[in-house]
Each structure stands twice: as structure tokens, then as C-alpha cells.
């Protein structure tokens, strides 16, 4: 089975020399556990031939690049900022609405009702699907995060978009990674996503009396249940490192 490296020290060997080509990975974690950092480390470790695309919904593009530079990861990637696009179109509209609700609709817009248009509603999922369809084989994709999609779109539509990405990943020889903050969603959503993906990785940041226990698990590995396991993880100047504990 051909695999591509994750870039995370000791993780590739715990998997099958990395992530098998065609696989879709879910990385879920508690807030502050470092899943976003993992996502950047993963995209920054792409092979030269891989078309690397990082789709972000929450961060500014330059912050992503700066963080990756701090860790000396490769930054020759394409960043698609769904969040900024969303903000530009949808939130801008909401800002207008709150202004109009407060001050009333200005007369100028009443007289020229057809000149003014709040831009057509952005359908993030359509935009996302479009971006995915542009990926060339082989590719490496990160979607950070699913939380944004679930909080702005209908759950069933998000799930169906994820299925599209998954099959595209399979047929186009790619690998895809989705991030998701756990414990926020009804179990039907959680299990819906978990059922689609081939590998589930989790990161937990558990508070102890003396500090934090950082637990990394391989929760699911399609057709390789023997790979499931629990690890500790930590941060170094090169990024995330995992260590076997059992």
C-alpha cells in the first residue's frame, strides 16, 4: 500500500508508513489540543509531487503562513480562505442588517431599490466542492475545520459534501484531512463523519494536578484494527512529536 508521510515524528511508523493514498482522515480534538497545528504540520510535509491545498475557515491566510514559517515547514501550498470569503459576503450582510435595523433603511436605497443588492447568498458548500474538483492528482488536502461548516450549513448537506470529498480523494489519489472539535455535536453528526472517514485521529489536552496530559489516539484505521492505539504527544521546535506509552 502506497502511503504519504504525515510529518509528525513517530506517527508515520504507528500508521502504515504514513497515510495510505486515497484515505480520508478525521482529526478531532478538544479545544486547545493543537489540532490546527497538526493540520499545518501535515500540509507542510507534503511531497514535491503532491498538490497541497489548505482550506481554512477561521484563520487569516498570513497567520497560517507565519505559523508554518516559525516551524520551518514548507509553505509552497495553496490556501483557500473560505472564512474570509464568508465574512466578506455573509457577515458584511449581517452588519448591514444590524445597521438598518438600528437606523432604518436609508432613503437612497428606497428610491433605487434595484441598484442595491446584498450580494447573493454565498453557498460555502458549493464553493468548497468547486475547490475540491480543481485538485489535481496526487493531492494533499486539509480542511480546517468542519465546525464552521456544521454551524453554518445544514448537517445533512455537510455530510453529503464530505462524501463527495472522500470519493474524490479515493479516485484522484489524494489524501484529505478534516479537523473537528469534539463534544460540540450531536452524536448523529459525529458518527456520520466518523463513518465516512478511513482514519480517525484524536488529540486531547487533559488537565492534571501538575499540568496537562496530552493524549493522542489512533481511534480508527480502516481494515487495520491492529493500528489503533494510544500515545502521548508533545511540542518541540519542529512541531508535534508523539510517543508510545504502552
Amino acid at each position, binding site marked *: 500500500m502506497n502511503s504519504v508521510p504525515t510529518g509528525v515524528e513517530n506517527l508515520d511508523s504507528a500508521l502504515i508508513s504514513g497515510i495510505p493514498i486515497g484515505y480520508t482522515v478525521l482529526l478531532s480534538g478538544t479545544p486547545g489540543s493543537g489540532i490546527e497545528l497538526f493540520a499545518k504540520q501535515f500540509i507542510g510535509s507534503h511531497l514535491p509531487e503532491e498538490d497541497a491545498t489548505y482550506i481554512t475557515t477561521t484563520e487569516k491566510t498570513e497567520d497560517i503562513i507565519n505559523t508554518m514559517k516559525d516551524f520551518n515547514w514548507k509553505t509552497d501550498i495553496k490556501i483557500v480562505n473560505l472564512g474570509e470569503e464568508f465574512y466578506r459576503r455573509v457577515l458584511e450582510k449581517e452588519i*448591514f442588517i444590524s445597521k*438598518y*435595523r438600528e437606523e432604518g*433603511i436609508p432613503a437612497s*436605497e428606497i428610491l433605487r*431599490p434595484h441598484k442595491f443588492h446584498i450580494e447573493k447568498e454565498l453557498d460555502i458548500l458549493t464553493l468548497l466542492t468547486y475547490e475540491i474538483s480543481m485538485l489535481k492528482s496526487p493531492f494533499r488536502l486539509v480542511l480546517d475545520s468542519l465546525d464552521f461548516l456544521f454551524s453554518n450549513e445544514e448537517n445533512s448537506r455537510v455530510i453529503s459534501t464530505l462524501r463527495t470529498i472522500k470519493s474524490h480523494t479515493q479516485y484522484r489519489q489524494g489524501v484529505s484531512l478534516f479537523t473537528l472539535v469534539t463534544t460540540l455535536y450531536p452524536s448523529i453528526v459525529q458518527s456520520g463523519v466518523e463513518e465516512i472517514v478511513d482514519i480517525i485521529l484524536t488529540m486531547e489536552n487533559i488537565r492534571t494536578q501538575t499540568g496537562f496530559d496530552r493524549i493522542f489516539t489512533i481511534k480508527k484505521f480502516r481494515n487495520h484494527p491492529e493500528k489503533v492505539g494510544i500515545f502521548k504527544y508533545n511540542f518541540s521546535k519542529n512541531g508535534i512529536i508523539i510517543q508510545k506509552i504502552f
Partner: protein
Amino acid sequence: MEKVRERCLTGIEALDNILNGGIPKGNTVLITGSAGTGKTTLSIEFLVHGAMKGEKGLYISVTEASEKLLENLIVYDFFSKEMIQKGIIFIDIPEIYEKLGMNKLQFSMEDINLLIENIVKIVTEFNVKRVVIDSITSICYRLQTEEKIMEFILRLSKALSELGCTTFLVSELLPSAKGYSQYGVEEAVSDGIILLGNLERRGDLLRTLRVVKMRGTSHSRATYVLDITSIGILLVPLLKGGGELI
């Protein structure tokens, strides 16, 4: 002796005669009837005659896009389409809903207040003297409860009346409706009711008009036959030949 109130001439000569000199200024009048009985035509003509006298009109379209309405508008001998567009402000209420973020099926009291405030704002800023809301039934549909419908109509008509504005509320009468309006509340809180209908008499279909109620003036309660022509609406008394109002 009853104080004689200032009148707002509809410009439809026969109707003004039926009303003994026009609609008492500031009244809110329900123009009610089933589909195809001439409610919109009557309302537009009311605005057109206002515009001819320099009284600004406001047409708030709820169900049909005003552009489409203008396309299908009857061509009057006495007033060009260009003049109509100059003297009457046409607003599509879905645009107002969108600008105010009123996207829920059922409006809250806050939404109702906002809607009233914004209509009043337009009326004030443009010194509007005649308002048509076509149709009130479609707004009522999103107000749902009788209390909210009553609140909306009462507060709107009070505000508009204080501004010296005479208002037509177009009401769609479905066969299921009892009385003169769909929710029953509209007729109770209006100052006047003009009922439009179709009368079948021995196989002939006649359009009819009757002033059912008009506060502030004595008026005929007889039924009239109506004809829509290029010189405006014409009325003659219905001959007493029997027949059923449908």
C-alpha cells in the same frame, strides 16, 4: 353636528360620489375581494390620481415584483407609465425583509416594530400622502396570531394617519374566508372596507364594488358594477335583477 373631515379624493369619480366626497383623510381602508376582482387596479388608480395632484404615493408590493406589476399595468389615457414611476414609489417588501434580516417565517414583535418604523420612515422622508400595501394578507400570514395582526395594522394606521396619509390595505379573500378578510382581524381594525367581487347573473359575470364601511362619512352601501378602462374605473349601480355574489 358631525365635524366634516378633510377628504382624500380617490379620483374615481363615481367612488368619490358614493363616499359623499371621497375618503376621509387619514383613513385606513381595506380593499378586499377574491382574485381577479380589480383590487390592485383600483389601488394603483388611487395612487395615480394622487400623483396627478402632486401627492406622493407609496406602493408596497408583497406578493408580486413591482417591476412585473408595472409591465402589466393598464395603460391610462391620462397618465403615462413614466409619470407613474415618477410620482409613485414602488417597493418590494421582500427587499425590506432582507435588508432588515427578517428571514423567519413568523415575525417577532421586534420585527413588526421594525417594519412599521421603516414604512413610517419612508412616508416621512418622501412626504408620502397615499399608501397601498398589496397585500396585507401576505404580511398577516407571517404575523400569524390575531394579536400581532391587530397590533401591526392598528399601529401602522395610527402612525400613517398622524402623517396625513390615507392608506389602502389590499386583502386577498379566499373562498374559505368568512366575512371580509382572511383572518377576520383586518376588517375589524380598518376604518373602511371596500368589497370587490364577481357577480354571476344568468350566466353573465359582472365585477362589483360595494362600500361596506367607511368611518367619518355617510355613504351608499349599494352594490355597483365596475368596469376597468383606459380612462380609469367606471361604476354604475347594479340593477336589481337578483343573482348571487361570488
